[in-house]
């Protein structure tokens, strides 16, 4: 058999052109999301079999309007095209353009073409042409652009095979200097640049010269570039001139090949924009959408969550009945199974949230929210673009903080990163869910339940805390940066289900395997710490039997032994030692243990209590909720989880910074230890004080 041929393809294009849809069509689920080395920019790579014995390795580069970067995402695109040495260097570029904004898309096309890389132009959304009154002479356009041009529709799944064929025949795509505008930008400077860096294609030299501070290049080349004699020319002015000349070049081509009947355009978009960005209705609709999201997270997710909770309890006791008793069985039934359950239980809520966020992004509505919110967010030191991280933060702070990368001003970006963890992430949900179920009555008002409203109140509290701290930081932080803000408001589109599905699947998977590892590991460690201890622990049976008044009642005696064991285990000792500090908040040492462990990740709170109570409890079939409800406060003789304690705990979890992964990502994104430490201390102290006040008010 012949060796299979491998073609490396880079997929580029403006945002909102359906680039990722094409990527999904080509690769299906054969894709992998990882990070670029050194930065947290997501790198999506997939493989596609495009012919017999031919496989394409396709990387979906971040969306960009130009090769001149203004953000970390866009740096990656430039980097990919400038480093010919690296393994990732593409054999062919597939540029996805949207039929309506062809002019702006061709701008990027000419830049890449000038880099002398074979590039194929894909014009997407061909199904919209008739409706928008657009007419393109494809053959002539291909001739003028000296390239292949293919019309496709990712929505209707048309033309994908032609893309594959074109990739396969990429060697037939002509390469070479294209626009030849260099001499017209400056007839004096460019020939001189060409002479100074004679071995590098001219446009590449120019990019290296203007952008070398943004990318990683080999030191020898860097030195050569820094030595280039500018002869007193102003780079920025030449860049501006280059841009204008490029557009002139494109206009000339489009005049011959592209026509649009403007009357056919804008109708629906215009009407929708009128309502969705209206000064009153705009906000009302946005608030209604948020309300719907939160209500559905609580209502729709309850059934599958209860089911998961119950299933794992049943599974634990079933396994226990099947396996011979011993340490190994205990590890499985009290450590591993509840641990895995603690991860799986998140999936319904995370999936619902990511679905909403993905749909809002896909339809183009999110950009309207950015537009609507920019002025307001600026008062709190952020940008309209911060709305996306803050909403995504309701799923998980980690992707949310990464989403802050496309905020251009450093101060606005930093504040967004620092306050995003206040928004109620899905890790808090199980904590809230179980506490609400325990302490808030099931009263209903029409379609709303008191429990749902409480949850919404907690969400609002999270947003309020984010905004307030944003305002404070805005006043304190003395950082002066120009924040440049341009947002494209794309056309409204019906979301493509496949795209939404893949996004939700990828993000949920990343969460389960990323955060899941920590949760599972901690569950096992916890189980060990709760079932082992110093001398008092080992002699528990003897000590309790000697002291107890219930010597005759075996069941009560066993319970006392278990309780004594837990109290004297390693974890019990740790919990006891912090009890004085948390007693004013209404917590005992068992809750203390859960607080300690949940500094690694909030959701561990529930699984910790589950582990603690199942170590203590003899009847294994109970769910976590039933066990918590049965917990008695020895001082009052009533339930431990009463309203003041429940409220105080919820407030603590609303504000405290309890997620190691988030701190790690903040460290990475801000490139310093200062900000994550400040964030951790600030949020935790605030949480303590707020929980203290709450407890005092309610009791």
């Amino acid at each position, binding site marked *: 058999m012949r060796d299979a041929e491998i073609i490396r393809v880079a997929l580029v294009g403006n945002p909102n052109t359906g680039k990722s849809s094409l990527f999904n069509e080509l690769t299906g689920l054969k894709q992998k999301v990882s990070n670029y080395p050194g930065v947290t920019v997501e790198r999506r790579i997939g493989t596609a079999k495009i012919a017999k014995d031919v496989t394409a390795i396709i990387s979906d580069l971040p969306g960009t309007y130009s090769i001149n970067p203004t953000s970390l995402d866009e740096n990656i695109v430039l980097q990919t095209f400038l480093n010919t040495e690296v393994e990732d260097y593409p054999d062919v570029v597939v540029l996805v353009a949207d039929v309506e*904004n*062809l002019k702006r898309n061709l*701008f990027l096309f000419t830049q890449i073409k000038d880099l002398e890389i074979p590039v194929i132009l894909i014009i997407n959304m061909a199904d919209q042409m008739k409706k928008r009154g657009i007419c393109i002479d494809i053959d002539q356009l291909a001739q003028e652009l000296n390239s292949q041009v293919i019309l496709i529709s990712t929505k209707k799944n048309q033309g994908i095979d032609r893309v594959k064929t074109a990739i396969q025949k990429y060697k037939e795509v002509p390469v070479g200097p294209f626009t030849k505008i260099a001499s017209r930008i400056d007839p004096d400077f460019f020939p001189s640049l060409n002479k100074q860096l004679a071995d590098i294609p001219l446009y590449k030299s120019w990019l290296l010269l203007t952008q070398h501070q943004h990318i990683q290049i080999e030191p020898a080349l860097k030195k050569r570039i820094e030595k280039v004699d500018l002869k007193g020319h102003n780079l920025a002015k030449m860049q501006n001139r280059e841009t*204008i000349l490029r557009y002139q070049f494109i206009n000339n081509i489009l005049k011959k090949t592209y026509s649009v009947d403007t009357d056919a355009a804008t109708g629906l978009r215009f009407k929708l924009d009128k309502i969705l960005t209206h000064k009153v209705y*705009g906000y009302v609709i946005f608030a209604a959408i948020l309300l719907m999201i939160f209500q559905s997270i609580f209502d729709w997710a309850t059934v599958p969550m209860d089911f998961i909770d119950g299933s794992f309890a049943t599974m634990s006791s079933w396994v226990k009945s099947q396996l011979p008793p011993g340490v190994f069985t205990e590890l499985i039934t009290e450590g591993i199974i509840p641990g895995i359950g603690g991860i799986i239980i998140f999936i319904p809520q995370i999936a619902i949230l990511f679905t909403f966020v993905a749909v809002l992004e896909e339809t183009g509505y999110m950009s309207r929210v*950015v*537009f609507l919110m920019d002025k307001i967010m600026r008062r709190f030191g952020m940008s309209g673009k911060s709305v996306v991280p803050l909403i995504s933060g309701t799923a998980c702070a980690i992707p949310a903080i990464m989403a802050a990368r496309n905020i251009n001003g450093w101060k606005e970006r930093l504040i967004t990163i620092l306050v995003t963890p206040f928004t109620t992430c899905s890790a808090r949900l199980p904590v809230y869910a179980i506490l609400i179920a325990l302490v808030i009555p099931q009263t209903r008002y029409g379609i709303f339940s008191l429990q749902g409203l409480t949850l919404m109140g907690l969400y609002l509290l999270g947003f309020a805390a984010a905004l307030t701290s944003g305002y404070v930081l805005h006043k304190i932080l003395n950082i002066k940066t120009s924040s440049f803000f341009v*947002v494209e408001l794309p056309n409204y589109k019906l979301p493509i289900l496949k795209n939404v599905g893949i996004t939700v699947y990828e993000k949920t998977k990343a969460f389960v395997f990323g955060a899941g590892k920590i949760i599972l590991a901690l569950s096992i460690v916890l189980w060990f710490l709760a079932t082992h201890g110093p001398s008092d622990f080992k002699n528990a049976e003897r000590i309790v039997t000697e002291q107890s008044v219930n010597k005759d009642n075996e069941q009560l005696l066993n319970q006392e032994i278990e309780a004594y064991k837990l109290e004297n285990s390693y974890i019990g000792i740790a919990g006891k030692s912090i009890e004085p500090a948390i007693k004013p908040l209404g917590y005992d040492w068992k809750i203390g243990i859960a607080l300690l462990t949940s500094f690694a990740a909030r959701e561990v709170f529930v699984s910790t209590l589950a582990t603690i109570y199942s170590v203590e409890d003899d009847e294994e079939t109970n769910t976590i909720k039933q066990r918590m409800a049965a917990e008695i406060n020895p001082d009052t003789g009533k339930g431990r989880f009463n309203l003041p304690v429940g409220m105080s705990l919820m407030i603590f979890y609303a504000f405290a910074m309890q997620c190691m992964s988030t701190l790690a990502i903040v460290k990475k994104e801000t490139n310093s230890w200062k900000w994550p430490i400040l964030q951790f201390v600030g949020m935790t102290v605030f949480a303590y004080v707020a929980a203290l006040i709450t407890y005092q008010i309610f009791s």
Partner: protein
Amino acid sequence: MAIGEQGIIQQDVHGKIPLKLLEMGCFPGATVELIQIAPFKDPLYIRVNGSHLAIRKETAELVEIEISENLCETLKL
């Protein structure tokens, strides 16, 4: 400039228009239409060269335009 009005971007002698804006199609000679103004009078929603963009007022003030009735002014309100 009022909502619905159009204007033409003037020559940018001092190079004040940010590169990013030029790249998005907002260059001298292009026609700009003001489509919508966000609540609290900022940012502005414009159409230029087929692109629909939201830009802040402070950025818009860098771009000189001539409104269709031949009045030269910045994109101020």
